[in-house]
């Protein structure tokens, strides 16, 4: 299969994923305790008003009709209006999503910047002191819960030293990066620890490979042996892990964004769940599912580029 065919096939795979997640989301939101209409109108609403709103939101139709309607709208990007904010869900998400994506992107970049060079140093000095130091530090990073590390960083760097803001997102691009720096570093620490461990192990495996010895026997410069032969082969397995972890980060945005008061979709999700804001919950879940699918697709494409054996 060639690359274009592969991409097309993978993009098509997103469609059943989308429908399935849509179904799950739809069913789950209906299973949540409490009735959204009475939640919206309050306890003292008249029956008449409640029924009117029910009809308006389509709650009086059969559950299947509701689901198909929901899917149909979702495909066209129409998720209806938020019950709590009374604005179109699409607009609400469009405002919040860039924050979450920037945060996730920053965290990924920070994590890779930490993990890749340090994994190389650790693997090249396997079982000597630089390796031990790096491994111990990352072990601590890995075993500390995100919210705890986050709170410590917030307290010290933001509240005491006032180097960084305590929350929010800021106005300009630079301001955004500034506001997201601490949360991104927090996320990056455990992310980097996971990648470092995996990459160190696969680097050590590749370093033993005969083709690396062959590359040395050819008299290639050290950095070419390291980058083209060792690192590239070692990254093949790590790339998958990076993709999976980005997916997990997006899912975990709920926690991070709450700790750091970041106005992203994670916070929006928490608020919407408490408010039983069904349209927002459904739309968010679907959007995140699609984004995660795309991340996995990109991961696979990078892996394909690194490893020609994958598709041939």
């Amino acid at each position, binding site marked *: 299969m060639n690359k274009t065919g592969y991409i097309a096939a993978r993009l098509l795979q997103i469609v059943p994923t989308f429908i399935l997640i849509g179904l799950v989301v739809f069913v789950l939101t209906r299973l949540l305790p409490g009735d959204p209409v009475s939640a919206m109108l309050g306890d003292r609403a008249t029956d008449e008003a409640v029924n009117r709103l029910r009809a308006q939101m389509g709650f009086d139709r059969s559950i299947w009709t509701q689901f198909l309607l929901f899917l149909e709208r979702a495909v066209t990007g129409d998720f209806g209006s938020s019950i709590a904010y009374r604005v179109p869900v699409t607009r609400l998400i469009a405002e919040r999503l860039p924050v979450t994506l920037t945060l996730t992107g920053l965290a990924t970049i920070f994590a890779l910047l930490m993990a890749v060079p340090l994994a190389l140093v650790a693997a090249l000095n396997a079982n000597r002191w630089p390796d031990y130091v790096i491994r111990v530090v990352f072990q601590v990073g890995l075993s500390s819960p995100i919210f705890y590390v986050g709170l410590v960083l917030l307290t010290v760097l933001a509240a005491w030293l006032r180097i960084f803001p305590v929350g929010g997102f800021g106005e300009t691009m630079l301001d955004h990066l500034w506001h997201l720096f601490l949360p991104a570093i927090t996320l990056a620490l455990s992310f980097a620890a996971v990648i470092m461990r995996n990459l160190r192990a696969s680097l050590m495996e590749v370093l033993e490979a005969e083709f690396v010895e*062959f590359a040395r*026997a050819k*008299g*290639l410069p050290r950095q*070419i042996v390291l980058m083209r032969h060792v690192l590239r082969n070692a990254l093949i397995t790590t790339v998958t892990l990076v993709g999976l972890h980005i997916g997990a980060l997006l899912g975990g945005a709920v926690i991070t964004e709450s700790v750091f008061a970041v106005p992203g979709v994670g916070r929006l999700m928490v608020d919407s769940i408490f408010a039983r804001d069904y349209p927002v919950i459904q739309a968010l879940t679907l959007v995140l599912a699609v984004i995660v699918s795309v991340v996995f697709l990109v991961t696979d494409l990078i892996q394909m580029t*690194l*490893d*020609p*054996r994958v598709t041939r």
Partner: protein
Amino acid sequence: MSARLTEPVLRVDNLGVRFDTPRGAVNAVSGVSLTVGAGEVLGLVGESGSGKSVTLRALMRLLRRNATASGRVIWRGEDLLAAPERRLREVRGREIAMIFQEPMTALNPVLTIAQQIDESLVAHRNLDERARRARAVELLDLVGIPSASVRLDNYPHEFSGGMRQRAMIAIALAAEPSLLLADEPTTALDVTIQDQILKLLLGLVADLGMAMILVTHDLGVVAETCDRVCVMYAGRVVESGPVSAVFASPRHAYTHALLRSMPSGEAARQPLTPIQGQPPRLDRPIVGCAFAPRCAFVMDACRAATPPLMLVGEGREAACLAADRLAALETVA
């Protein structure tokens, strides 16, 4: 295949390689001395674990981090064991090249053959991209890969075993080395392919005026391809000399036993008798001749001290106290 040559290009003097392992030191190679003349093919034989691969790697200083090499490796008058890393990178690939047993693992799976040839040319030759490509096509032609310009852009997994080994040879020869170190280049291949690859190597040695050290288990291969042979046992060279002379009348009890255990080939006149017992462990000091516990000719003196290599004929050396008895034996038979 003329063995009479002038000054050797490579002279190994008292080479030793020790590995430091968590369970103690392993003396994988001790006191190995050998020479290779220009255009000469030297066979290096011995049982598994006798130190053949370690010796080859030590010549190019390609040993693992836990290894310490001692002695001297004089390449065209220069001691490679003392040379700076930069100089070694010039020697590797350009002057001395190495090929391995298993091309599937020795070739980088994610780079095309073209890329793997090209990086060698970039490192050692001052050619532009076009000229490098032309040279790469030429190399695949040289090693007998059909439709070279197409196959060049294939990845190793797209080749058959024999073709892969040819590709590895092409990559190793990219910068026209004058010595090729071949570590069991045919062991992983089918018998018919083995023959083809050996013929190819011999042809290349003759055409390019290259010397070669051929490591192998197979005495038949040595008989067919090598000018001289070094027999290794437990990290030492126990016998060396011209192939025809050594095979006709071995002067070390181990060589003798090895020849008798040989399954096929022209030197297999006697019935097959595998050598009983195991080679010694290398992580303990060995007192006396390492082969003594398995030797049919053993004497008390063999266990007292390691027998030194002694001249046992024209260009022949053996480290065996039974050399005379073996010589007599062979003439009788």
